[in-house]
């Protein structure tokens, strides 16, 4: 299945892109997706403890099971205000 990924804030600088996509087997979790992304964008590894992850407009944990067509967002801690 195809998962689209959006990067926000300085994660765009760390990856060099705003969007990416990954092909993953059915049943993959966000944790699995992160392994793929860390291999492809090693600069994200140092950020992994503070990385926030959303699917669509909701935050999700590492054990969330992805569905085909999910849009995943990765970003550092938010700082509005």
């Amino acid at each position: 299945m195809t998962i689209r990924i959006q990067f926000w804030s300085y994660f765009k600088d760390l990856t060099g892109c705003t969007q990416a996509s990954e092909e993953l087997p059915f049943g993959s979790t966000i944790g699995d997706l992160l392994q793929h992304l860390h291999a492809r964008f090693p600069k994200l590894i140092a950020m992994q403890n503070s990385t926030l992850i959303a699917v669509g407009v909701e935050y999700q944990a590492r054990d969330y099971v992805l569905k085909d067509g999910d849009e995943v967002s990765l970003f550092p801690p938010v700082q509005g205000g």
Partner: protein
Amino acid sequence: MERSLTLTPDPLDEPALVATRRMTGDMGAAVYFSGVVRGSEDGQPISAIEYECFRPMAEHQFHQLFDELEHRWPVESLRLVHRLGVVKVNESSLWVEVIAPHRGEAFAACQWLIDEMKRVVPIWKKPVV
């Protein structure tokens, strides 16, 4: 609860916002917060802050917070404006109005909302030198 959320690149006109306040006769307290861009970040002088926003998620997360706020406190009206893009030093990036029967709940709700916003609403700052 009346609610108004505005995410905008335009400068905030706070006097105009205050002038459009609406509250019924049961309400006794209006609390406002204006967040203003400071002239330094981590000790370095800056000229502005650029705000980036993941808008659909920001709107969704704001409304989830508004729902929770409404359950916790008897707030009659909540208005929040967050400016996006480049905001110069000394200009407001955030304006919040909370209207409630008494000041205790108005202050509590306003502070809670700002704290939670800074935890979950996907808006990011980048200093502009």
